[in-house]
């Protein structure tokens, strides 16, 4: 059975609507005087991929699991670094070149932790959050293939010696079904 999911404060949002980057960054530090660093990342839709033009893309996701996966990644980041606030927004549906897809914002006392946590969240999101991109190209619609570089980007965090919190049992780097 699918367990009920705690409705935490809005650290994670999965939505079709666009977001306001400036507003999100401002909210991360709102009402706090202990924030010394804010690191953020914004992912955009490119107009070309794998040698083809991209007119638009449609992001499909797994409602329910997507939110859980993002929350899990945020929890792992908080367990690794001293973070003061975290915000992750990921859009779904049809998006066009230059549209924003994803926002990650992290605050900490010092820049090192904010930089690292922001990159960690993006690397893990790329390999663990259940989103799939279907691109509209002049040759027709095509599903984007997962990149090995994304797997290695995520794997280096496991190899970096930082402690990985006890997770949900499954080794995420070994989720290809064993035969």
């Amino acid at each position, binding site marked *: *059975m*699918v*367990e009920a999911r705690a409705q935490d404060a809005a650290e994670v949002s999965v939505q079709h609507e666009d977001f306001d980057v400036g507003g999100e960054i401002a909210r991360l530090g709102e009402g706090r005087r202990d924030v010394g660093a804010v690191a953020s990342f914004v*992912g955009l839709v490119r107009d070309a991929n794998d040698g083809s033009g991209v007119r638009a893309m449609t*992001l*499909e*996701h*797994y409602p*329910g*699991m997507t939110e*859980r*996966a993002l929350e899990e990644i945020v929890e792992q980041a908080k367990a690794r670094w001293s973070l003061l606030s975290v915000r992750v927004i*990921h859009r779904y549906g049809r998006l066009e070149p230059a549209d924003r*897809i*994803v926002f990650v914002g992290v605050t900490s006392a010092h820049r090192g932790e904010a930089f690292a946590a922001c990159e960690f969240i*993006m690397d893990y*999101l*790329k*390999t*663990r*959050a*259940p*989103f*799939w*991109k*279907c691109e509209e190209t002049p040759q027709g619609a095509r*599903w*984007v*293939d*997962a990149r090995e570089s*994304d797997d290695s980007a995520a794997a280096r965090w496991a190899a970096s010696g930082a402690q990985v919190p006890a997770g*949900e049992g*499954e080794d*995420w780097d*070994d*989720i*290809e*079904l*064993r*035969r």
Partner: protein
Amino acid sequence: MTSKVKILYFASLREAVGCAGEELDLPAGVGTVGALRSHLAARGEGWQALAAGRNVRAALNQKMAGADASLDAGDEVAFFPPVTGG
């Protein structure tokens, strides 16, 4: 007594099998995610997208799961290609 599970398919795998999901009474001997995958692949045609060797991921009750994960009545199982968000 029947063991009914909910199965979901996403992205290119959804297109290959031709449906977004179904409810299935687990046949005798199908007790794990891996066994369910094999059972579905044996339907043939588009379902062969689930065959061994294809790059398929699975989730059990909305958490990534391996082939050994065991199934219970009421479970939600999902099959999909490697994720490409971000």
